[in-house]
């Protein structure tokens, strides 16, 4: 038990940051992914290259952007162009190492719905923003990190709309569908860290957040969750918390 405290948002941001290796090209989105990418760049991955689909590459963020189109993403950028350059020249050529995703529904193979709730998407019960670049990142990044609110209804047996393809039906179904590389690597949720089995591509519980148990996480998951060998999620270090609070988000734009 640490003698210092941290919030759930901080635990998730740190866990997200730790998914980024130094020197990697990171396709970041708004919110937790930006907290994570910025923290990674200020800690263990100073040479990670943060790119935004709206057109900037290698930003050295000084202030947390509220959007991918925020003027703040221009800070220290090596190149500033448009969506076409980022998607065509970098993402589609397989040059993005890790991309971040999130959504309203996620299934056991890491397929994500951020389009709408309801069996018929043409008459949805609830409509969301839509794919944005999520489908493209899911298809073309070398690996993806999924950020999720952990609730039963958000991890159902089947999702209403596959906005962002994960491992599809598992096994080699992703390759068979025409996706030559990539796929979900990890899900960082409000309760746990989940990864995917090498062959089946089915999700399993890698770790449960401090204060929870593997079974508690499984109980809050809509599909049956493989919890064999799950451990506790490593907590943030004091240094990571310091950077997060004092350097990354002193304005408390996203941090709670």
């Amino acid at each position, binding site marked *: 038990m640490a003698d210092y405290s941290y919030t759930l948002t901080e635990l998730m941001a740190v866990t997200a940051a730790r998914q980024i290796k130094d020197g990697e090209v990171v396709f970041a989105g*708004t*919110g937790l992914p930006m907290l994570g990418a910025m923290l990674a760049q200020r800690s263990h991955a100073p040479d990670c290259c943060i790119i*935004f*689909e*709206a*057109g*900037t590459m290698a930003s050295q963020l*000084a*202030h947390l952007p*509220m*959007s*991918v*189109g*925020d*003027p*703040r*993403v*221009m*800070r220290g950028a090596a190149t*500033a*162009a*448009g*969506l*076409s350059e980022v*998607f065509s020249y970098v*993402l*589609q050529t397989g040059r993005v190492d890790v991309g971040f995703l999130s959504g309203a529904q996620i299934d056991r193979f890491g397929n994500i719905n951020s*389009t*709408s709730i309801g069996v018929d*998407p043409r008459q*949805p019960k*609830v*409509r*969301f*923003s*839509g*794919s*944005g*670049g*999520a*489908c*493209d990142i*899911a*298809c*073309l990044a070398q690996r993806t990190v999924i950020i999720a609110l952990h609730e039963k209804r958000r991890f159902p047996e089947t999702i209403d*709309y*596959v*906005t*962002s*393809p994960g491992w599809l039906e598992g096994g080699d179904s*992703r390759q068979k*569908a*025409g*996706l*030559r590389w990539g796929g979900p690597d990890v899900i960082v949720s409000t309760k746990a860290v989940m990864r995917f089995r090498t062959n089946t591509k089915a999700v399993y519980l890698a770790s449960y957040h401090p204060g929870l148990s593997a079974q508690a996480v499984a109980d809050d998951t809509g599909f049956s969750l493989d919890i064999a060998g799950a451990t506790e999620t490593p907590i943030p270090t004091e240094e990571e918390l310091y950077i997060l609070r004092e350097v990354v988000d002193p*304005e*408390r*734009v*996203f941090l*709670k």
Partner: protein
Amino acid sequence: MANKIIGLEDAAALVPDGATISFGGFTTQRHPMAFIYELIRLKRRNLYLFGHSPGGDWDILIGAGCVKRVELAYEADEAFNTIGPRWRLAVQRGEIEWEDYSNFAMVTRFNAGAMGLPFMPIRSLFGSDVLARQALSEEQRAADPRTSPKKLHVMESPFDPNDKVVLLPAIHTEFAVIHVQKATANGTVRFEGQSFADVQQALCADMVIVTAEEIVEEAELRREPERNLLPYFTVKHVCHVPFGSHPYAVFNYYDYDPRQLKTYHDGAEDEAAFQQYLDKFVYGVNNHTEYLEVIGGAERLNSLKADPEFGYSPNLKRRRLE
């Protein structure tokens, strides 16, 4: 050289009911908002919108009842509101027609149009319902030339039978309206910062209307021709509209306006509150100058001014919005 400068009202009046149109910008930056407010005041109806990641520019147009059909990838203000409130309601109430694509797919469609091609291929979308399903029926597509007869088409590469791509149909709009930092009377424009897909959107439109923060001399922009991304002869009209993107940001000029955005989003899902917003900020003013007064005038605008060192306002008070 030509003088293409006209008034904002005259420019907006060129757009008829039922027009196909795209607006520049991305979620929270460089939308031609002043132009959009004019369209609402003009009570334009049945517009067909094409975009990748619009934000409140589309949301207020949709809420004001100006829009019949949209083709898009995303509609929200990101951290200010992760779903466009009027977009969501219009869909859930069946008040609008739409087709879902991804950002890459929409940008590719604009690119195809800009390049004079019928389609362009991409490697994205495989395995997704963006590829497998469509919101517009064959009948709706067949009945309306403003919409492509097919959403997309999957094909094998003639150079490698084991390789397949998705072909996306080109977009051609009657109008593209983009808001930029600098433009000349002759139609040479300067994008500062991210260019988003403004270049491609402009090049696939029959008529390009540019609204600009600043009108500068042709010689000034020609000193750095490498930075002029749009041939001047593709631009038809230029309007001088300072703070033309408020409440959204313009890199190097001003930041987004968190207070104004909160006012909009706090009320947008409530009919009365949304009508109040329209009455106060759109119908209640006669033009952009009056709008800038109503939102707080010089004092508010000065608080948004960009710090030249950053291109935005580093001390801007930003509420936590989630």
